[in-house]
């Protein structure tokens, strides 16, 4: 029960944030986004306390409570209609019940990596923060799950075994409600059956089920990346910037999940924000906050990791935050006509750079890269049966969906997903390469693409009234 109480508290923090700054015109979506947003905010607060070495249950609650209070006051001042209050109350009751049930038994899968994440979190809790003992050991994984596990200090548990399960289950309504909203933006009468079918398809994939109970970083990455992209799409399509604050909270959580994620985040920012038609003032402060939090963390890491680290070294950490700062700088000068013209070419440039990178990698290490790709293909082609025919089905659906007109703002899906998969292959260049196995790094990483692909294909097929007629596609980006 103590875990469930923590999860409900985080859910309420997130709901308050979403109602204060987010899409308050959609109270159910605010509630669905609540847990993910609240967890991200709680983790960032804990991370700051842990870096300052003043972390503990009392300190964390004392720091988070006033922040949540401010969210609640702002939400109240903007007005909370009776219907919204009713939705929040009902949703929170349902979430609490689900959290209690899902935390009642430990069904979590723990691999070597999971153990390390939990172990380092215990070290941080016992030390009252991150010290020279624990910081260097964070070079191989992102910090998010470690810090999330330190929140167990506010419970009676040694670790939050309910966290992956609650996060995974809480993602289902986010997927369904964003798809419902997106279909509603394209057609007057969104199709509930299409939403239900797409959601069922996604969550029936055994690999997704596996990740829902697997204590690791990958599915959380997929959840937060999806949340960012879907909310950005809704913001642009509806011309409604209120989706962006939660989107950037999600992007911050995504970038802290894994060491390669900041680079993936930059790719998706180039495909979304750089192409935005929304007011710049609605983007700049949240983008700056994202860069400060993620960049700041990587500078802390740069000062503590070993120079010859296998994954992150000080030079690599500083390269990452340098790229993040450059992204912000690029955005700030994007008012210039020349930069705006260049921004239109960014998606093409990303594709070109990825293709060139792959070509160079295969040219310099043909055997290594070849075996990596073969292992990856074996993993998705039934060698490791957790995927089933997922990738085959996605390819077939993508081919069939070509007859439908493309929805607007498709770049993060039709370019972002392939570029991400290309990057996933490229990331094996310097390491031992991918292998055949459920727990293989590449096999886990590619789950990022799946919710985005299913959502987009559902949007494309169900969002159009009829197959497209001959002529130019209606897609705009």
């Amino acid at each position, binding site marked *: 029960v103590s875990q469930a109480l923590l999860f409900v508290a985080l859910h309420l923090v997130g709901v308050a944030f979403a109602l204060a700054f987010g899409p308050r015109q959609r109270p159910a979506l605010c509630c669905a986004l609540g847990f993910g947003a609240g967890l991200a905010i709680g983790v960032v607060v804990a991370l700051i306390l842990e870096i300052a070495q003043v972390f503990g249950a009392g300190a964390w609650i004392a720091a988070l409570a006033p922040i949540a209070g401010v969210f609640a006051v702002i939400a109240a001042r903007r007005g909370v209609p009776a219907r919204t209050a009713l939705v929040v109350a009902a949703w929170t009751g349902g979430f609490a019940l689900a959290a209690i049930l899902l935390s009642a038994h*430990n069904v979590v899968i723990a691999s070597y990596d999971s153990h390390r994440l939990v172990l380092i979190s215990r070290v941080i809790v016992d030390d009252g923060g991150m010290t020279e003992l624990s910081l260097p050991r964070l070079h191989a994984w992102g910090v998010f799950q470690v810090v999330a596990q330190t929140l167990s200090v506010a419970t009676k548990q040694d670790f939050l*075994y309910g966290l992956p399960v609650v996060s995974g289950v809480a993602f289902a309504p986010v997927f369904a409600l964003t798809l419902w909203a997106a279909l509603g933006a394209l057609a007057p009468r969104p199709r509930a059956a299409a939403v239900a079918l797409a959601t069922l398809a996604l969550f029936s994939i055994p690999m997704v089920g596996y990740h829902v109970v697997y204590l690791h970083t990958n599915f959380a990455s997929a959840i937060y990346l999806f949340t960012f992209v879907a909310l950005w799409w809704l913001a642009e399509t509806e011309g409604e910037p209120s989706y962006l604050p939660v989107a950037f909270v999600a992007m911050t959580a995504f970038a802290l999940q894994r060491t390669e994620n900041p680079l993936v985040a930059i790719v998706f920012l180039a495909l979304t924000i750089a192409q935005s038609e929304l007011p710049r003032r609605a983007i700049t402060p949240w983008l700056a906050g994202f860069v400060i939090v993620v960049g700041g963390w990587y500078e802390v890491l740069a000062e503590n990791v070993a120079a010859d680290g296998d994954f992150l070294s000080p030079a690599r950490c500083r390269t990452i935050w340098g790229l993040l700062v450059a992204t912000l700088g690029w955005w700030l000068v994007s008012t210039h006509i020349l930069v705006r013209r260049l921004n239109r070419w960014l998606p093409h440039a990303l594709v070109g750079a990825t293709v060139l990178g792959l070509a160079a990698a295969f040219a310099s290490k043909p055997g290594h890269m070849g075996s990596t790709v073969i292992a990856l293909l074996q993993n998705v082609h039934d060698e490791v049966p957790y*995927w089933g025919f997922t990738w085959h089905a996605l390819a077939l659906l993508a081919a*069939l969906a070509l007859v439908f007109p493309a929805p607007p703002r498709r770049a993060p899906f039709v370019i972002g997903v392939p570029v991400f998969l290309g990057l996933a292959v490229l990331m094996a260049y310097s390491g031992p390469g991918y292998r055949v196995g459920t727990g293989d790094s590449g096999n886990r990483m590619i789950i990022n693409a799946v919710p985005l692909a299913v959502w987009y294909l559902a949007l494309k097929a169900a969002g159009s009234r009829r197959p497209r007629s001959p002529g130019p596609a209606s897609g705009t980006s």
Partner: protein
Amino acid sequence: MKKVLAAVVALWIAHNAYTWTRVQQLPCEQRVCRSPRDLEHWARSFRHPRISAQLAHFYFFRQYIPRTRITIPPWMSNWQWYFKAVSRMEVVVAPDKMLVRADAVEGLKSGAIKRTWLRRNGGQGTRRIVQELYVRFADGATEYVLAEGGTDRRAPLFLMPADAYEEVKP
């Protein structure tokens, strides 16, 4: 065309259901094992020292030595099985050469280690400094050293192969 797409998705969902049944039939090493029987099999099947070391690692790393509370936590349903795997080892603590034999560990549940440690630490269990903690498998094939513990009360212990420890030993 939408009906065709819906039919493909329905088939995909049906195949996912079939895949779930296939996953359950995989050998234990290739899938996620949840039942105690499976977990025992899993623990026994991994005779590789690294995997066994991780089982020990999980237990010892999270403990600070000395610390006031050393318990076998009840939160993992599979914990007993982890512990069973660990219990096949001898644990030797230097410099006092305190020995926790496998048979002394096996069968004891939560609190057993705590009492052992408290007893040998004069009933307090909080001020003791441990320089090295040797972990030797019962078959004598592999020896590991928990290093980095000791003088700093807050220093965590890390498990590494004995030969590797010899290389970094001050």
